[in-house]
């Protein structure tokens, strides 16, 4: 068993690419009611990859328009700011996810602090698969054989678990302390951390609904404090969500295309 030092993991995190500036800027601008259309358009236009992707999505959806949409301004006149914002956020998320396609990383997509925390809480596993694949394989194998939680095996083989690595990554990317903290403890039951409890619960729902399991198929039990947050036990919570097949399809649409 290889012993990996904390410094070694920190060095790996350093090698991770930056969270695209335009992405955090767009999330910031779109979550504020009074950011101007001008500012939002400027950020999108300043990112040629995003601009290209928006135009590509629009031109394929609206292929029958008499003239091709060749600029964000043109797109704005046709579909309006709101749809452009939503497209930009969706594309931003794919842009962050696309470079990595590792078998054990399942991405979760939903929108705000919850959205970002939900999106990034397992990013630490990317650090492992990118730079410490062999040790991570051991951890995966062990948790699979023992039907035990992956994060415990990670600590054993990698000296740190993915939640901790995700936290360091989140801070490196300039995300808020609240988000980083909630990511760090998403496998523990921290009664006062609402965001973290939501990630934890959402993970259990995702497993139950077979949306994905991030290499950890065990459905964990909600604590009494978590049940208190949602006001109903887990099975009722699932029932209240109703048919999530639509959400499922949307998630697959993003990840699959």
């Amino acid at each position, binding site marked *: 068993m290889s012993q990996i030092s904390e410094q070694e993991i920190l060095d790996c995190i350093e090698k991770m690419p930056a969270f695209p500036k335009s992405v955090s800027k767009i999330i910031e601008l779109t979550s504020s009611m009074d950011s101007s*259309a001008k500012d939002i358009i400027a950020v999108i236009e300043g990112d040629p990859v995003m601009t290209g992707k928006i135009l590509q999505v629009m031109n394929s959806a609206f292929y*029958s328009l008499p003239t091709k949409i060749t600029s964000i*301004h043109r797109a*704005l*006149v046709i579909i309006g700011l*709101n*749809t452009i914002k939503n497209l930009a956020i969706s594309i931003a998320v794919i842009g962050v996810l696309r470079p990595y396609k590792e078998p054990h990383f399942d991405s979760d997509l939903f929108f705000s602090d919850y959205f970002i925390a939900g999106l990034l809480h397992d990013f630490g596993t990317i650090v492992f698969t990118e730079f410490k694949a062999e040790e991570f394989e051991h951890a995966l194998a062990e948790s699979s054989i023992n039907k035990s939680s992956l994060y415990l095996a990670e600590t054993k083989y990698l000296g740190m678990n993915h939640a901790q690595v995700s936290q360091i990554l989140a801070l490196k990317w300039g995300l808020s302390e609240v988000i980083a903290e909630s990511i760090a403890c998403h496998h523990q039951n921290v009664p006062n951390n609402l965001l973290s409890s939501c990630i934890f619960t959402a993970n259990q729902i995702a497993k139950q609904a077979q949306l994905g399991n991030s290499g950890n198929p065990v459905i964990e039990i909600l604590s009494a404090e978590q049940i208190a947050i949602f006001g109903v036990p887990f099975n009722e919570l699932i029932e209240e969500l109703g048919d999530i097949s639509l959400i499922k399809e949307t998630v697959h*649409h993003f990840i699959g295309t």
Partner: protein
Amino acid sequence: MKFKFWGTRGSIPIPGEKTIKYGGNTTCIEIITNDDDLIILDTGTGIHALAQDLLQHMPIKAHILITHTHWDHIQGLPFCTPIYIPGNEFIIYGGKDVITNMGIERALQVQLQQAFFPIAENNLKAKVSYKNVVPNEQFVIAGATITPVILNHPVINFGYRVDCDGKSLFFTGDYEQQFNIYEPEDTEYSEFQAMIDLSVDSLVDLIQGVDALIMDSSFTAEEYTQKKGWGHSSYDAAIELAKRANVKQLFLTHHEPTRTDANLDQIYTELLKNYPDLGFELHIAQEKLEITL
């Protein structure tokens, strides 16, 4: 071709003594062709009363054109009783959502989730099918030619031009003409303005000379200054468009929820005063109002 308003209200149904004349139900317009074919524009709460009417004429075949999936344009659909009765047929047309890449069927599926509605989709005993519309791609239903065009709103919204029996009608759905996001001193201003002008010109071309223009006109000019970017037009914007397109009749619809009958009467009087030479008939859309073109 004739058409009838079953819902003229925007955003939320407003029942009560102050909305008796113009109606409190949300958007729904029935079109009947000379051959008695049925086309329905949007399925706001107004469709409930229309459905009661349709029950007398079963089996029915209805072509439903959805402008967009905001609640006030779809919330009546699960309450359209004939949809649960075998022998009826519904063909629902709408745009694909560019974010989810899903078609108009999603709207009904979402509404019929058990947390929101007690009857599941597989209990729709009528034959229900869905068709995606694509901007500027004409299609023919029941002898009517439909031209969908994408119009600016916070979600993908289609305006529909309906040509049938030598007559024509255009319904905007919810629409706000994109405004210039730049200040006149910004370098981008004039180029962006040119793009806006171009898109308005092509809309004017499309609806040139229609017998009836039914247009979202939620706000007074004064209100609009506070509600720019909300996705709705003012009375004045509707009149301006109608003038430029030389329409024969203009119907102002999507009445703002707080607007009483008295308010609308007053607005109508003022509009006639402010625009003495309209050159077309001006109407405030009114629930149960039926127009033969």
